């Protein structure tokens, strides 16, 4: 008993300051990109492993819903520059299309959701393929380093208790039925959040015989969190904005 208490004192209070302060992001973090169409070469476009960059009629776009943030496009050219802007989650698929203008955190649907759920959100997570890193970094939000519970967000075991479904993975053909059944078991209205390139667009596994092209091909989606996998700060920020939490304006 004393040992446990001593350990408690030794380990200390370790919950991070985010979202009340900016998150600690690693030096090589790839956040919201800035795109310069004039400098874009055909080679950069073709080298993207997931064909996320498009150029038509002089205007270029980069689809964050497909991007796996490998950084390849920024490595050999300065047409793309990754900033450390982590507020990348959006409430619309279009919001993920980067066209050069720096991002503005999106708060479009927050009001409606707040009316339905107050400021809490019970989430049923379902992996629908993918490499499991996306769900590992959602899980991490439950640890005391992030302590997501203090914002009223919590993962629940039963879909019947859930307000939202958080899906990761491209939706494999083998998971199609189980995913739909889970969704059907949720009381309506409910929300669908997709996390990671796989779940948004199929990511690396897009256009394959064994997978669907992301959750949108199966269910209506309300919130999109880009990344491969999304950094916990990216995901938590998106969830907080999704529920219209007050906690999302870190002091500069």
């Amino acid at each position, binding site marked *: 008993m004393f040992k446990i208490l001593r350990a408690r004192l030794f380990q200390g209070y370790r919950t991070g300051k985010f979202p009340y302060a900016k998150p600690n992001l690693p030096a090589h973090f790839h956040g919201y990109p800035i795109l310069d169409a004039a400098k874009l070469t055909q080679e950069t476009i073709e080298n993207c492993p997931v064909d996320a960059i498009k150029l038509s009629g002089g205007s270029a776009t980069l689809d964050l819903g497909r991007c796996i943030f490998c950084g390849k496009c920024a490595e050999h050219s300065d047409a793309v520059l990754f900033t450390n802007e982590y507020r990348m989650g959006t409430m619309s698929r279009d919001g993920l299309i980067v066209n050069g203008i720096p991002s503005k955190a999106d708060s479009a649907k927050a009001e409606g959701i707040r009316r339905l759920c107050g400021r809490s959100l019970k989430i049923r997570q379902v992996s629908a393929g993918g*490499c499991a890193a996306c769900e590992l970094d959602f899980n991490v939000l439950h640890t005391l380093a992030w302590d997501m519970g203090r914002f009223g967000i919590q993962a629940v075991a039963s879909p019947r208790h859930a307000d939202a479904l958080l899906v990761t993975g491209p939706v494999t053909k083998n998971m199609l039925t189980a995913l739909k059944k889970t969704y059907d078991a949720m009381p309506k209205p409910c929300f669908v959040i997709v996390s990671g390139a796989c779940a948004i667009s199929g990511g690396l596994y897009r256009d394959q015989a064994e997978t669907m092209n992301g959750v949108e091909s199966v269910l209506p989606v309300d919130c999109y969190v880009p990344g491969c996998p999304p950094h916990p700060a990216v995901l938590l920020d998106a969830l907080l904005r999704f529920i219209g939490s007050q906690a999302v304006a870190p002091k500069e």
Partner: protein
Amino acid sequence: MNEFLFCTNHTFFARQAVPLHDFPVFRSLLLREVPNHEVAAFFAVPEQDEFFLYAALLNPEKHGLDVCSTKVGKSYPALTPELPALSWFERELFEQYRIEPIGHPRLKPLRFQSALNGTDNQRPEAGAAQYFTMQGTSVHEVAVGPVHAGVIELGHFRFQCMGEDVYSLEIELGYQHRGIEKMLEHGPDKKSAFLAETAAGDSSIAASLCYHRILEAAQDIRIPARAQALRQAALELERIANHIGDSGALSGDVAFLPTASYCGRIRGDFLNITAELSGNRFGRNYIATGGVRYDVSDDTAGKLLAKVNAGEKELMNALDLMFDEPSVLDRFENTGTVSEETARQIGMTGMAARASGLKRDLRISLGSPEFPEHLRQCASGRTGDVLARAAIRRDELEDSLAIVKKILSALPEGKCSENHADSVVLPADSMIFSLEEAWRGMLVHAAVTDSNGKFLRYKIIDPSFHNWGGLEMALRDQQISDFPICNKSFNLSYCGHDL
């Protein structure tokens, strides 16, 4: 003709050089060797209407692999009845190419996928398989999954129980099947490295090492010492983060919360150290052909070393709490035991095999480690229960922490990556095995090239592929309520298996 071709890790050789035996000879070789040697790979390469079967066995004495082959048609007499270690491999042959191993005792789908050679597009319905059942008035069956209660991957578990006691557990996977091997065919292309890397997200470093070493072998690139050291550090950091997470999860599953919550946080700190090296908490895209993508400054290396030291103190404090707690030890001890004999028979690998007393560690058997003095010759007198699998994590954490600290405190000078050509031409009609000791155990990437030097076949064998059967065995005669801690003590990869 030689019985086997001996090859070293990460070395191309001509397919022609592999001894091709008549099936009876092939069979007798395997019957003789498999009981005492780990099966690294057993897979088919189609050729017209026939199939080459390749078997690769570890040869720890010579620090390499012994490879042999045979040719079969649509069926052959199964080897599993004599060699249970081949059971999942033969199920895979059946599923991927519809080659029937006649007499296989449990021939059923492994991943519920369509055939790789496309002659049969009948996809079986996921999970619909013939399960082993027991008869009797007090027998009941428990079915769990594919969607589980927690935030975790997908799989289906069938228990046959009498009261609380489990008589048999059968595991059906495949829900995460994305078709990675199929997608890698005709590569390497711009996507290949990422596909190989995301086979199992928590083993990204090990997997990308396997992949890039194949491309390096093709170009005869020598990795600079600094890159080598950083790669080893990243691999050990991956092991550390996962072992910490599992230690905490085990503690949480027996409701001892202090260690569970400390470890959950400390795991994150180690993921963040990987992120400082690579930009990504899972080390995505850190390994590059020729070395690593980012160098570290002396200043950063010093800071990371300080973080490792601090994390180690907190970790040991958290683990001490758990291992000093009688109520925890009582739950761990004699739970989910897999005997050494069983582990050998079913061909278990890695940490779980070592916990059952088998000396299986590629860092030793392939003679690759730069830091052998830090790897204790583990596994004498291990008991094979949950306690052994928890304790071995602690030992391995100490070893890996020592390696990382040593690397960070004395990084070799030089560059962190060797120059290489952008587009790689692989040797034609060749084969290569690329193995790493991932944190769960032996990870194998085997590539077979066609006459144009493209991947004809890219076979990935995750350590979990060998060990899921171990979890099934661990549950025999256990209480069903002990399933969570047995499962956590293995913490196998679903996606790595499903590909």
